[in-house]
């Protein structure tokens, strides 16, 4: 394996504070050439900040960076790139309205007689995608592709011929199993060519699949580092959380369906052309219905049709036994249906507004603009949610854009919870949330359910669906292809239905 005498890149004694937060304190990170190094920790532990320091995106307060044993100055992202450090950030920062070609050649356009040569740009873009075995039309706008493809394009853009260190911040958060496997194949190839790779994720399975070594951050400090083989799962989790995880699994396995009575929300032949074939689906109080399917199978569309964010052109929606004529998000909220969107950056967060304002927004629209929630009431609500979901923020007035990715996700979740719904539709509720918080969210879902809430959870994580659902609806190619309940809900069963066998 790799030569361990001089690490490829070393970060020594790195510290960083933001106003009110000590994000990193005296942290050390060593990466060897040709290894995949997993960087783990709870939401807000400082992972993204650490790699942003390595890539020059955030200035450090103290510390030193050495590349192949020599101290280097990394003041800007351009410095880092010149040294062969390439990054894909947690929040994909490509431009959705531009074509794939333009996105891929944004920083360095091939020129001919001083003008951009689009012919060569296209060739370059195709060549970059080829390294990832990705064959897509490079002239279509990036936004017309799924999040997963966009993620792969971001990786294609980061990779240069001279890349020595590749940083991937939660690259698999929006990928399904096949796409993740594709990405891992690419990572293994890159690793074999001697690149040092940092891999941040909250999926522990993936860590054991691909990482050679692990470093764990907690509260901005390095609390452990070592070969993957020496860090079994339970030890790893207790390192990350600073406590034992408890017996979440046992607790979950034993739940009985609490569903009772008539459906609260029912779709009858609800659908929209080119979006989702007409489907029937009902949610009863005290019941969790899972929505399974591959990426692009229509999970988000189903959720949005039920919430009224997509207008149906066939079928009807029945709420509490009464048909809902013209549904809109506002009306849904008013009649007690809440929705937590999948893409937090595009559809969830108001980055400039505070955590408090983000949390109270849906409740406020439910009340209408004239009946403003009092300031104390707002504060109490925010505080309650911050505590219930363990949102890591110094206070409720911090702009939500400054929270770590996982904590932003929790804020969006908190918003839908705060509107006091009786039906809650969650689209990928646990994306980017750490193991501890994941267990908390699952527990919360169960508790809400036992209090009579009806829940719809769309997720690409089959284990999560199996763990929480009383019933699972399976989608394929924008059509509902099956439904299972009780003991029939198993990973294998879902996969078989998805595959259509």
């Amino acid at each position, binding site marked *: 394996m790799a030569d361990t005498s001089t690490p490829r890149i070393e970060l020594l004694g790195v510290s960083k504070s933001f106003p009110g937060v000590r994000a990193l304190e005296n942290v050390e990170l060593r990466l060897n050439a040709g290894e995949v190094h997993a960087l783990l920790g709870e939401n*807000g532990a400082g992972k993204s900040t650490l790699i942003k320091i390595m890539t020059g995106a955030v200035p450090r307060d103290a510390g030193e960076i050495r590349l192949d044993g020599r101290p280097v100055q990394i003041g800007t992202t351009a410095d880092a790139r010149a040294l062969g450090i390439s990054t894909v950030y947690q929040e994909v920062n490509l431009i959705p309205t531009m074509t794939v070609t333009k996105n891929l050649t944004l920083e360095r356009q091939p020129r001919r007689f001083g003008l951009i040569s689009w012919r060569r740009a296209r060739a370059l873009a195709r060549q970059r995608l080829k390294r990832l075995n990705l064959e897509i039309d490079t002239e279509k706008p990036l936004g017309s592709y799924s999040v997963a493809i966009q993620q792969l394009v971001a990786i294609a853009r980061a990779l240069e011929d001279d890349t020595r260190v590749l940083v991937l911040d939660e690259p698999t958060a929006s990928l399904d199993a096949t796409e993740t496997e594709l990405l891992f194949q690419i990572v293994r190839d890159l690793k074999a060519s001697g690149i040092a790779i940092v891999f941040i994720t909250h999926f522990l399975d993936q860590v054991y699949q691909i990482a050679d070594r692990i470093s764990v951050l907690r509260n901005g400090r390095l609390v452990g580092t070592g070969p993957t083989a020496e860090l079994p799962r339970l030890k790893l989790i207790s390192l990350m959380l600073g406590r034992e995880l408890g017996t979440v699994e046992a607790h979950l396995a034993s739940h009985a369906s609490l569903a009772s009575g008539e459906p609260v929300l029912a779709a009858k032949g609800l659908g929209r052309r080119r979006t989702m074939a007409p489907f029937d689906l009902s949610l009863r109080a005290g019941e969790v219905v899972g929505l399974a399917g591959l990426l692009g199978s229509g999970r988000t569309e189903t959720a949005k049709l039920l919430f009224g964010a997509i207008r149906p052109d066939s079928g009807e929606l029945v709420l509490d036994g009464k048909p809902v004529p013209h549904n809109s998000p506002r009306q849904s909220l008013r009649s007690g249906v809440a929705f937590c969107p999948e893409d937090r950056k595009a559809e969830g967060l108001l980055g400039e507004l505070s955590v408090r304002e983000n949390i109270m927004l849906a409740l406020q629209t439910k009340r209408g603009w004239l009946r403003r929630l009092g300031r104390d009431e707002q504060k109490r609500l925010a505080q309650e949610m911050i505590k219930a979901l363990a949102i890591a923020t110094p206070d409720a007035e911090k702009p939500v854009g400054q929270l770590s990715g996982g904590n932003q996700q929790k804020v969006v979740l908190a918003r839908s919870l705060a509107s006091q719904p009786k039906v809650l539709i969650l689209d990928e509720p646990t994306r980017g949330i750490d193991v501890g918080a994941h267990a908390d969210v699952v527990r919360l879902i169960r508790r809400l359910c036992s209090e009579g809430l009806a829940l719809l959870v769309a997720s690409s994580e089959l284990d999560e669906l199996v763990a929480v659902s009383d019933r699972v609806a399976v989608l394929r190619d924008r059509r509902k292809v099956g439904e299972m309940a009780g003991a029939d809900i198993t990973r294998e069963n879902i996969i078989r239905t998805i595959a259509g066998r």
Partner: protein
Amino acid sequence: MTAPLPPSFSGRLRELTSHRATWPLLALAVILVVDGFVAPGFFTIRIVEGRLFGSLIDILYRAVPTALVALGMAVVIGTKGIDLSVGSIIAVVGATIAWRIQEGDPHFVILLTALGVGLLCGLWNGFLVAVLDIQPIIATLILMVSGRGIGLMINLIYGGTNPSFTSPLLQGLSVGSIGLVPTRLIVFAAVFVALWLLIRRTALGLFVEAVGGNAAAADLAGVRSRLIKYSAYLISGLCAGWAGVILTADTHTSDPVSVALYIELDAILAVVIGGGSLAGGRIYLGMTVLGALVIQTLTTSILMSGLPPEYNLLVKAVVVLFVLLLQSNNARNAVLALVRRRKR
């Protein structure tokens, strides 16, 4: 959770330098101090003919139209929009007033008509932006370009070119005073308080900021973003209408070609000096008024200093640029980094 940091001195200092009121206030103070040196008696306020009199009062008095327009602009900018048509709205309102006076309408009806015309203009802008989904800068450009022409056409109805008029009611609102205080200041204060209550004591402000911050997210959270955008342009139209009443009554005449020329630029600057960002998502009403004061103080000072008026715009541009640089985190950090490098 990450450990919270105890506040330190440098932390406090950073908080102060990054507080949004600090730099505009400082700029205002500096301009005033310079004025104090240049013009003796600048700060004296006397009572002449039963009303307050002095340079400071004059600045407040003249700042009212810009400040009014800027308040509406702040709300529109909060939705990530912009209203370029405010100057033209003032022209149309002015022409309407002169015309109806000529026709002999009762003056309080004319006042209502004037505000109604402002509202109508806002309705038009709102229709283009919120219903037809035209980009705000283009949508409001249409009225900006055509409004002054509409004003001239209204003048033609009765064949008058720049007719002069008198109206005790309108002029009372504009140049009169109640006790010692100019009426327009009192009315402005009332408008400000009303708007503040509307924005901050209902949820309208939050909804505007949500729409400006991320319209897709706001929609999914149940905000009716079209309606919110619509109301922002209505508010702006109404504010401009009021400014039109004041300016027209002040000049006793309808002069569509040159009334309130470039007021949209002053209003946008006032919002930006007040810490608002054209990227939308935040409304600072109080700070916007402060911004308008900075601009008016500057204009008045340049006039008083005896500099040839040609320099007016240039000096204004330089000072505004300076304030904006001070407010910019990037610029501040760059300067700090330079200083630190020197020290090493």
